[in-house]
């Protein structure tokens, strides 16, 4: 039995009266590439944000490798939705990637050559080295997404949470990103991705969680990615053709 990388217990989150997430129990084994799928408003982003402590849950706890999340932050990297920041911010691509090193640096200390080298390596991994000095507003959507990915890579974490990394990117970028994610999995990392395109789930991922306020199902794609669970999650009679 593989080790459990992320364990969520009884997580409940509400913005107002209505709960967005209800009593979520989730165990994510180490080394999987997992998709979180569900309709709009199912709480997919909320789940990630609550695990990461960005949102405060009403109840529940999160542990990373059997210890509370707060003590394991350095093991976790986060790729937010691209639209969550102002890309007109006066800074360069390299600078944004450097931000990934800030956490390990801690307060006040400045990034040095070592951090810069790590950032450049990450830029190269995502194929963006040529754009390192580019003002971030002059990057395309796909390039911005790659910059965010590079920033997470720099953190050198064990667990990666990504909020819709394929949103609004072209086919080339999508393939480039998924290849990096598969490489991460090969290196024994755990990758959790909020995903929208059901068609690509069997191709990209080996683990899946169905979510619609409550957890519907979680497990290996080959066992649980079926019409039954899709119908339960999306509420309509959903048929997906799984390519073998």
């Amino acid at each position, binding site marked *: 039995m593989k080790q459990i990388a992320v364990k969520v217990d009884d997580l409940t989150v509400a913005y107002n009266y209505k709960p967005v997430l209800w009593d979520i129990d989730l165990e994510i084994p180490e080394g999987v590439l997992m998709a979180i799928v569900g309709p709009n408003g199912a709480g997919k982003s909320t789940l990630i944000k609550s695990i990461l402590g960005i949102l405060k849950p009403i109840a529940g706890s999160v542990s990373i490798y059997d210890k509370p999340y707060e003590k394991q932050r350095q093991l976790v990297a986060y790729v937010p939705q691209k639209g969550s920041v102002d890309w007109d911010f006066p800074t360069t691509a390299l600078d944004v990637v450097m931000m990934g090193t*800030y956490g390990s640096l801690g307060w006040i200390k400045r990034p040095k050559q070592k951090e810069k080298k790590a950032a450049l390596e990450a830029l190269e991994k995502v194929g963006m080295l040529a754009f390192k000095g580019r003002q971030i507003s002059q990057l395309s959507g796909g390039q911005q997404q790659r910059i965010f990915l590079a920033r997470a890579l720099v953190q050198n974490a064990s667990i990666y949470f990504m909020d819709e990394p394929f949103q609004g990117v072209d086919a080339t970028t999508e393939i480039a990103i998924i290849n990096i994610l598969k490489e991460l999995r090969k290196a024994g990392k755990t990758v959790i991705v909020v995903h929208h395109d059901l068609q690509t789930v069997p191709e990209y991922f080996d683990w899946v969680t169905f979510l619609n306020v409550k957890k519907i199902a979680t497990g290996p794609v080959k066992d649980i990615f079926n019409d039954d669970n899709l119908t339960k999650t999306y509420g309509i009679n959903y048929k997906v053709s799984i390519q073998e």
Partner: protein
Amino acid sequence: MLGSFAVLRKQSLLGDAISHAALPGIAIAFLITGAKDTNTLLLGALVSGLIGTFWIRGIVTKTHLKSDTALGLILSLFFGFGMLLLTFIQKQPNANQAGLDKYLFGQAATLVESDVWLMAIVTGLCLFVLLLFWKEFKLLLFDADYTKTLGFNTKFIDVLITSFIVLAIVLGLQTVGVVLMSAMLLAPAAAARQWTNSLATMVLLAAIFGAFSGIFGTAISASQNNLSTGPVIVLVASVFVFVSFVFSPSRGLLFKQIRFIRNRRDLQLHKTLAFMHNIAETHEDISHPHAIKLLNNFQGYTRKTLKKLVEKDYVTLQGNMWSLTETGFETAANLYTKQTTEDE
């Protein structure tokens, strides 16, 4: 300097709200002490400015109101209360009361040496904190959620930035006054943003613009009678903003327009050349002369672009006939590949 942060946080109006919120603090401090000691008055301004800021925070997080609504609400509430207190003070038989209204529009002439020292010290402190927490400030400004996941205490950074903005505003009150203070905070930052894409340069430029506005503004108002300093400083700062909006090389309106026109012209040239290339390709001899009339089928063609092409030696004109030169043919052939690589 600190204005840069306000601008980038899209909380530009916060400065306005804070400065207005400082007014009742000044009035209350005067009512309590009965004296016009600058330091106590500014302390009062600081306290009520901070209260105003945190109320705004509270309104935004606790209710569904948008931040502009919250700002407007607090701004007018505090300013109204401040004005009420001021008029009340004016009715009092205290000889000291004259001069409090100076804080409305500011009067640099009321500054004494100790005030200047206080400003210098606070500026130094601001600089120190700014340099110390530069990395954290930048991170929070760009991506607050991400900052949290890295393990930084975002609330602390947030309070720190806000406190210094409030501090800077309160100190500026004496010079520029409640009503115009926010311009002083934002104008240099807005101007600086036009010139640079680096946060460090932006903050530095904003500081320089701010300082120059101060110096020039004071100089101008000193050379003329009856020109109050605060408004003149703000006007000078606005000139900086105007010049920056129009003349900045990358973001300025002027150069944008010039670039736009130039690009159009280049494209027209390219298009004409490409069209000629297409026709020329149908003949063995690329320099086969063609009637100018042929070009009429092509809409982008103008006599002006044709002349430009002649100047560049891509085309030769003989009477009413044009023919492509050797270089012209090659350039046209390379054009498409070149353009696609440039777009990358």
